[in-house]
């Protein structure tokens, strides 16, 4: 009887231990096509203005929205792309998570293999930044640096410096919702880190909507001549045949 009892305990321990040990849990599956709530001004999501440094406040006061980098089709940057009104797809593998964006037909690679940011990455900034990720329990934590300072944080014109350090947390709160928290740390523009939280909603895959559609910003970007009359617009002379 004692032997049986011990065996039962041993079996219970074996069968229950994976569930009790977070490190052995299989990470949640984030794959799929996700809808993003448009957040053109991060201050609205924050409920107030971000905590500017004097320099950051002056930049915000004087920002010229006609110079929005996306007006000339430059990439939107790693966080603005997730607050723009276009869906994205998550491709999830053990060693990499890829985000494929409809907006600007661009992607982010999140390296999940334990690597660090390259030592010289600050000298070679990327428009979408360099991202490494890890699982903390059921939450994907993504650390991004070397974000090209020509990108803006939103449509309203919140800017950042090359020192911006972006930390994002992706947590699947239900089968069709991901809660995304982005924390911005940039001592040049902001006196302390600040965060916004948004919720992504999974597309209904029964209605042929779980896909991303073409977006080619330079195809017919007629806004450039209005926003920046002195900028060359490669496509402005395009005149489709009168139908």
């Amino acid at each position, binding site marked *: 009887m004692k032997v049986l009892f011990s065996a039962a305990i041993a079996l219970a321990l074996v069968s229950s231990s994976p569930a009790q040990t977070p490190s052995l849990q299989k990470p949640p599956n984030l794959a799929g096509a996700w809808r993003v709530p*448009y957040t*053109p*001004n991060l201050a*609205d999501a924050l409920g107030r203005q971000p905590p500017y440094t004097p320099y950051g406040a002056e930049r915000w006061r004087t920002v*010229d*929205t*006609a110079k*929005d980098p*996306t*007006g000339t*089709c430059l990439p939107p940057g790693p966080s603005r792309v997730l607050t*723009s*009104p*276009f869906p994205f797809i998550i491709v999830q593998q053990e060693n990499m998570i890829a985000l494929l964006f*409809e*907006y600007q037909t661009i992607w982010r690679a999140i390296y999940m293999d334990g690597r660090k940011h390259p030592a010289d990455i600050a000298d070679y900034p990327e428009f979408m930044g360099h991202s490494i990720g890890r699982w903390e329990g059921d939450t994907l934590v993504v650390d991004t640096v070397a974000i090209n300072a020509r990108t803006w944080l939103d*449509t*309203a*014109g919140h800017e950042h410096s090359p020192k911006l350090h972006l930390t994002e947390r992706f947590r699947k709160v239900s089968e069709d919702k991901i809660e995304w928290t982005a924390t911005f740390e940039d001592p040049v523009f902001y006196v302390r880190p600040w965060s916004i939280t948004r919720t992504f909603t999974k597309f209904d895959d029964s209605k042929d*909507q779980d896909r*991303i*559609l*073409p*977006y*080619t*910003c330079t*195809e*017919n*970007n*007629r*806004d450039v001549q*209005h*926003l920046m009359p002195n900028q060359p617009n490669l496509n402005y002379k395009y005149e*489709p045949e*009168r*139908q």
Partner: protein
Amino acid sequence: MTKKSLLFVIAGIGILLAALPILGHHSFAAQYDRSKPITLKGTVSKVEWMNPHIYFYVDVKDDAERVTNWAIEGGAPSMLYRNGWRIDSLKVGDTVTVEGWLAKDGSNLANMRTATLVDGKTVFGASSGGDSR
């Protein structure tokens, strides 16, 4: 109004409300003046179903029968598609009424809030005016 056409209008308003805040790849405020709404009625002369935002052109007659060609900017094709537009929703020769906002630079350019076909069957909204600044 029949029950069916009433449903159509309600569906149209729903599409409009769904579309209003979602479009825009850069600042609406830099290019358009929200304090200058305009309504333009005329005949579609050209449609550019292209990225980053669709454009179409409308010949508008004034009281003296002079015709002015207006450029109308809408949203991105992908977002319009998701909100019910199809490539033939607006065709050359269609009569259309556009409500929107004037460009700041004084050109014959407006950003579309709604487009209504003359038969009232189609009401669509698509604007980068979701911009809160």
